[in-house]
């Protein structure tokens, strides 16, 4: 359940960029499939943390990327949505991970003109 710590890290980062907390409409994030983060669990935690810390009840939009891997047996570069997708050409799991562990807060959308 490190998603709770990660949700708090997200609000800390957002608060720092915005110079304080304000009600948000949308929060856009990116999660890689090899990051070890459960999007559902993060959504559950973030909803509570955002409300508690004064960011309102923003919609959390999660972009789930594909991992980039390189097969160490046949040198093919391929993409995978999860750990257990081997090389599409030779089936091997012998591979090097090029990307897929990313987890970023990309942007937030704030409602304006509501006062």
């Amino acid at each position, binding site marked *: *359940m*490190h998603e709770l*710590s*990660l949700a708090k*890290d*997200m609000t*800390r*980062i*957002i608060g720092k*960029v*915005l110079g304080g907390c304000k009600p948000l*409409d*949308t929060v856009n*994030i990116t999660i890689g499939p*090899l*990051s*070890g*983060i459960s999007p559902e669990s993060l959504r559950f935690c973030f909803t509570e943390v955002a409300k508690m810390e004064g960011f309102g009840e923003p919609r959390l939009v999660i972009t789930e990327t594909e991992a980039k891997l390189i097969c*160490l047996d046949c040198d093919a570069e391929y993409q995978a949505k999860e*750990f*257990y997708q081997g090389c599409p050409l030779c089936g091997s*799991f*012998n*591979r090097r*991970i090029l990307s897929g562990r*990313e*987890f*970023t*807060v*990309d*942007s*937030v*959308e*704030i*409602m*304006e*003109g*509501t*006062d």
Partner: protein
Amino acid sequence: MCDDITKQTVNILTPVMNKNDRFAASNRELLNGKIIYTLNLISSPGAGKTTLLESMARFFGSKMAVIEGDVQTDRDAERIRKAGCQAWQIETGGSCHLDAEAVNHALGHMDLESDELALLCIENVGNLICPSSYDLGENLKVGLLSLPEGDDKILKYPSLFSRISVLVINKMDLLPHIDFDVNRVIDECRSLNPEVLVFTVSAKTGEGMEEFCDFLENQFSD
């Protein structure tokens, strides 16, 4: 009252682990500067992390120091001190993992100046999931799996077992009593992680400990 509602987009473009990774880099710089080789030891609760460290403490003596991570109590640090090593306890107070900031704070309480000190072991909170996402500034991530946990665990926890450099299989003294296929574990771990090194040990009886400790000594003597 204004009816003209528009949305303003503010770019954040920040990796969430940035703060942790900054502390990890600072820990790594500090420890590398003092020529202290550091491991991050990760397993489920009860796999034998502290018993492994006690056994290592008997091998390395004052060359080794330990940071213990637990949700509560300083029982483990006490055990390590009794085994003859410097130990600092982090009580996370509920958190399921150590982060690099907590380790940074712990380093400030430890005596790192001894010329003898060459190995720092960080025992993470017992958990196969959350600790895998946090770089603590270590040189080596070590996963520990014990026989009673079962030989089907590797593929259930890919985030951890794909990131470790060394897998230690512990409680080998129980092999005659438990259906546990050591080769299955090794094969499945290599399928996630082709370069992983594997050691089979019993921290309790000492079986295999010399090979593991010799390997570590070679790492920090290089």
